Each structure stands twice: as C-alpha cells, then as structure tokens.
C-alpha cells in the first residue's frame, strides 16, 4: 500500500490538484479493483473526484470522503440493472503502466475478486489495498465493525477456496 499523503490544505484548484496528484493513482487502482473493469474504474474515479472537487471547501477529510464515495457509488451502481455485474468469460486485456501483460497470478486473483459480491469486494479492497483498519472500513462502508469482520472473513475464505480449487485443477 503506498503511503498516502495527508489531504492538502484548502486553497482552491491548486490544493485539489495536489490532492489528485498525491492520491489519484491509488484511487484509480482501487476503483478498478472495485469494478473489476479497467474502463469502468476510470469512470468511477472520475465521477468521485468530480464530486470531491465540487465539495472541496466543505469536506474535512477528502481522502476518506473519496474512498467512501468510491465504494458507495460502486455498490449503488451494482444494484442497478443497467449498470450491474456483467460477467465475462475472459477479462479484457489492458495495458499496465509498465506496458507488460498482467501476470497469471494477478489475473487469477482479479478474476476471483470480481466474482465476489460488491460488498465483499469493497471490504477486501479497503482492508488489503487501502490498508484501512476494520473500524475505518466500517465507517467507509457505513456498516458495523462486526459486519466488516464477518464479510471480510467470508470473502477471504471464498478466495482461498476458489484459488485452491483452481490450483488443484491445473
């Protein structure tokens, strides 16, 4: 997990630009993990950062706000039929920052992550990508800590089972 900088001091566009430069990459990657889709991840993070921009002078913790908006928007979007999950046989090939194709392990994990339900996926991303504590994840998801724990435990168990099954099948 990259060390995320503290929210920049308020001060208009410049402060917001600094915030995006410091946290944009992490938020974009989180969005891609949450959506399971390269392009939809970009759309999601743009939408969320636009919201942050519009509320820039009124939010105390922009990064926490952005994370919360990210998971909320993704969970809400997954509830809509026209924006719901669209499972595909193969993940789209997307260029990485280094221009290399995704590794086999990562591809496998991403695919399994995409098979989790949106809430489970959000918990995993917040806990293991954003490095949030259970309390912070609970606050971001607006759910009890106990629910975060159980959801996380269930999600990890599913990932393990699937990975083990796939490993055994190979």
């Amino acid at each position, binding site marked *: 997990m990259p060390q995320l900088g503290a929210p920049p001091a308020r001060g208009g566009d410049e402060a917001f630009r600094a915030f*995006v430069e410091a946290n944009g990459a992490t938020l974009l*990657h989180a969005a891609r993990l949450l959506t399971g889709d390269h392009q939809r991840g970009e759309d999601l993070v743009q939408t969320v950062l636009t919201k942050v921009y519009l509320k820039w002078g009124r939010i105390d913790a922009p990064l926490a706000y952005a994370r919360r908006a990210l998971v909320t928007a993704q969970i809400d979007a997954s509830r809509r039929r026209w924006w719901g999950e669209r499972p595909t046989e193969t993940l789209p090939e997307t260029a990485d920052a280094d221009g290399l194709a995704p590794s086999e392990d990562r591809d496998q994990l991403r695919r399994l992550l995409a098979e989790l339900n949106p809430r489970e996926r959000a918990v*995993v991303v917040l806990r293991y990508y954003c490095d949030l504590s259970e309390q912070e994840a609970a606050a971001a998801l607006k759910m009890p800590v106990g629910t975060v724990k159980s959801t996380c435990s269930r999600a990890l168990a599913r990932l393990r089972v699937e990975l083990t099954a796939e490993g055994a099948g190979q």
Partner: protein
Amino acid sequence: MTWDESELRAALHEGEGETLSPGHIVALGEARLQRRHDRIRTAAVAVVVTGLLGGGVGALTQLGGSSESASSNSAAGAKLDHFGGDRAAGGSSGSAGSSAGAAGGNASYGSAPQPLAPAAGAEKVCPAHPAAITLPTDEAANTTAPLFTGKVTSIRLCGYRGKPDGVQTLRAVTTLRGAKAQELADDVNASPAGVRAISCPAPRYSRSVVLYPVSGTTPGTTVRLYATCGIDVTDGHAERLIWNPPADLRSVLDDLTK
C-alpha cells in the same frame, strides 16, 4: 495455489501506478459546475417567466372579470360598491363608495358606457340611513305626476336593507348614467299608479333604494323605492305602486339591497 494476507496485498497492488490528470478532473468539475449554474439560471428564468405570465393572466382575468361584471350590469350600466352595514358613504369609512360620493360619484363608476356625467357634487352622497320619504297616505295625492322631470343624465342609487330592529342601513351604491338613467326615469314615470298590496307577509319596508337623479347639473327630486312584496316608488307626493322594472334593472335593485 495458496497465499496469505501479505500475498493478497501484493497481488492487489500489482498494476497500480497509472496516474490521473488533475487538470482533467478540474475540467470535469468546472463543466459540472457550469451545468449546475445553467440549471439554476434556467430555473430562475422559468420562475420569473411563470410569475410574469401568472401576473399577466391574473391581470387579464381581473380585467375580464371587471368587464364581465360590467357587462352583466351593462343593461343598467351599473357597477355596485358594497357596504358592510352601518357605514355611510361619503363619511369616514374610506370605501370606494364614499370616495366616489365625495367626488360626485364619477370615478368609481367608470364602467358605465355612457359618456354623460354630472358635474362634481351634483350627485348626492349616500347617507348611512335612507332619506325619510314615505308613501303618501292622502288618497287625493297626485299619484300619477312624474317622479323624474327633465332630461335625467344620471341617477345615484343608494341601497338599504333593514335590520331586525327595523332600522335600514346602507348596503350598496351605484350610479346609472345617460341612457340607462333616462330609461329608469321613463319606466317609472310611465308605469301605472297601481294598487296597494293588501296582504303582504314580508316585513314592510325591509328594503329600499333611494334615488338621487340629476338633470344636467341640477339635482332632481329625491325618490325612494320600497321593495317588499312589490316595488313601490315615491317622492313623497306622487307614487307608483307595484312598479315592475325591466329585468336587468331589477337585478341591480336586488343587488343593491342584498
């Protein structure tokens, strides 16, 4: 394949590093702000336009209502000013009727199409209670003499209605002008003397209208009209019993004494 949480973390971090353009996000935000401002401006314009249209329609409706009211009374060329009870026109009540009375009764009755109008002050102001003009009791009275003389240019009509104690108070005022005033005068003058109603269940003299005619600029003889079972008209000397006014004028008289 087996893994632990640290491997999960590492796997999740793979592929990150692609950056976002802050300028692009700011541009998106600015565009959204612009759209929001446009919507607010559009809504504000819509509200203003709706308000103006509403006001215009209201004004037109009011004008329509006035002309309708005028036309409903157009046969009599009259528009009524109503009074609540004991208020006397021309007094300190400040009503339209009183100001009209003080000004000679011209301004408030502009709906009448007839151009003729008496000079200011020629018409009587309606008093709070009707003028004491009673039907003559003398059988030998000249009952067929004209009640209105000369060319009547306007008649101010003051309507009264009696209270349970028998006292009549001013209810409404109107003025007939020109041809309509002359028509009323001619119709009364031409009506037969009639006969007194023998049996009348209604309270006697519960309603009355006092008429102040003007010929040119000269006030004529005040005439009082009693409405009970029929309409009796007198100036205290001559009389017309059970006068049957034209329907449009009857409705005006009814309105005056409601």
